């Protein structure tokens, strides 16, 4: 009885799961079809979900001309830089807030907490003016810097460090280690799982960031893939062909989907943590 219930449940769930996957599969399939076919019909074989006639032409075109490789590189640099920056400020501040005693600590934590309430949209206009005054726009650092100032990473790390045993620190202090040594040699190696989680989340977030790059980067040379894809969309299907735009979409998604599939458990854990802790 139970076993057959299980069977029907899976059958029942496969239908929505398939429907849910159709848009992604369609993008994948279109990216492997020749543009001249797509110009006539997008449903040549099996509603277009089966890539026949099949070609790699779109991906070759993507690599040989067009700006996508450059954008891809920019995205890697921006997401990598942002991840590194967030890790540095979050681990240091998170450790200090969790394990060090200093005056006005409660106020400092509260000030951090207030930052959680400020959404990106409330600061992107003044940031735009500030970066314009300094002449910083249209550079990769300008895409990275404002996004490092997010308190959520500090809170994740603080929560983690609070869970580590105090005795290790005390033992190290007895040995005559300084606080910075304790942080560097003991706490950082201990916190590898939390760091991995934070790194993946930040990378995902950075890769998909749209609003700030949209206002800050006006020259195509500094676009990220996310932004570049948006610029292709505004004149899509006319200039480059549907297949190539879909190939760009697939390329833009590939790193994060792979990253997600590898580190699925970390991502899910972090999201539920972020959800419950705000």
């Amino acid at each position, binding site marked *: 009885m139970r076993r057959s219930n299980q069977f029907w449940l899976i059958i029942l769930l496969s239908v929505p799961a398939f429907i*849910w*996957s159709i*848009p992604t599969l369609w*993008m994948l399939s279109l990216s492997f079809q020749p543009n001249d076919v797509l110009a006539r019909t997008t*449903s040549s074989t099996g509603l277009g979900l089966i890539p026949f006639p099949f070609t790699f032409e779109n991906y070759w075109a993507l690599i040989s001309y067009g700006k996508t490789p450059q954008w891809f590189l920019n995205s890697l640099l921006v997401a990598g830089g942002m991840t590194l920056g967030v890790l540095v400020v979050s681990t240091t501040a998170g450790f*200090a807030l969790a394990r060090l005693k*200093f005056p006005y600590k409660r106020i400092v934590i509260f000030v951090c907490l207030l930052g959680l309430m400020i959404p990106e949209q409330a600061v992107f206009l*003044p940031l735009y003016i500030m970066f314009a005054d300094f002449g910083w726009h249209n550079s990769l650092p300008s895409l990275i810097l404002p996004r490092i100032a997010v308190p959520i990473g*500090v809170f994740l790390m603080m929560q983690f460090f609070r869970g580590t045993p105090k005795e290790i620190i005390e033992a190290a202090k007895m040995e005559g280690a300084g606080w910075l040594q304790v942080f560097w040699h003991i706490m950082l190696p201990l916190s590898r799982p939390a760091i991995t989680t934070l790194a993946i989340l930040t990378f995902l977030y950075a890769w998909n960031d749209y609003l700030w790059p949209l206002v800050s980067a006006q020259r195509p040379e500094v676009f990220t893939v996310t932004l570049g894809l948006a610029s292709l969309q505004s004149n899509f299907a006319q200039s480059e062909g549907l297949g190539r735009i879909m190939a760009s979409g697939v390329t833009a998604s590939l790193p994060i989907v792979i990253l997600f599939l590898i580190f699925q458990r970390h991502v899910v854990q972090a999201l539920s943590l972020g959800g419950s802790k*705000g």
Partner: protein
Amino acid sequence: MKERRSSPFMLSETQAALVLLLPFFAVYFCFLVYPFVQGLWISLHDWNLLKVAFNPSAKEFVGLENYRRLFWGRDVEWHPLHRPVPQGLGFLMLALVGWGWLRWRREVLFVAVVMAGILIVGWGFHLGEDGRWFDRRFWPTVARTVTFVALTVPSIVIISLLLAAALNQRTRTMAVLRTLFFVSQVLSVTVVTLIWQIMFSPRQGLIANVFEGLSLEPLTWLTNEHLAMPALVITTVWWSIGIAVMLFLAGLQDINPEIYEASEMDGATAVQSFFLITIPNIGTTLLLVSVLQIVLHFQVFGQSHLMTGGGPNDETQVLVRYIYQTAFRDSEMGRASAMAMTLFVIIGLFSVLQFLLGRGRQ
């Protein structure tokens, strides 16, 4: 054991804290706190982006004028029963709160009172005989953003709760299915809009192809006044169901499986145990997911900006896109900042709630 002498360069605890906190607080103040205060400051000025860029003294302090020009109009009136249905609902909610004061959780009461207040006060304002709003587009834009949230969030919550309840088993098949539902969540907004723009296309779209296969007239989703908003909602639900499913799954893990086994012994069907066990036990997660999604989708921008350009006829214009346009197309930084601050207040209310809920859960 040899005790090492601490070196003269060793930092005290407070000094170490200072050193470790410095990097974060440097970026925090430069790129979050200062811009936020600056945003408030800008919202009190008549501040033209281009003029001020060339001549820093070309701004004029106008106090709260920007806010007045957004919210207010000529000959605006207020009546407690202007729109009896939403306002009556508000009064009903207040009555319910008064009646159930001691029995409900404090967070629930907070939400109820705020919502009742918004319903009663908000829907009471209307224009007098020859009145008009100073900004004709602001309130309709707010209304459309609220409509978007009101359509998106319940759909996400219901679909993801049902999916989570069905997927709540530790088997390999279920793990694969979970991944299938989650993958769309990690795509960027531009990829999502790219896919769905073409999905909805009346000439090339998959949906149009299916309609043609059934010999129906293809719909012009994104250019039709009645279909554009639902199209954005469908896109958004498809995109952002993953986190909600995962949060619900986490919540379901906390329910003791013995309760389900006991109810199965008593001959309860799956549907019965869903309504009698799952729903009552998942209340906090339900609230948390809803608030999280509300905060997230109030900030909607990409879908509207890329798929419909706010159209047709402003039908999908949302708050963030209006801020973006006011700032960068009309160069009116002051007014745009006032709108951004309004958005901050709305989102801030929900963030406080999210925080309270998160604390209540621990």
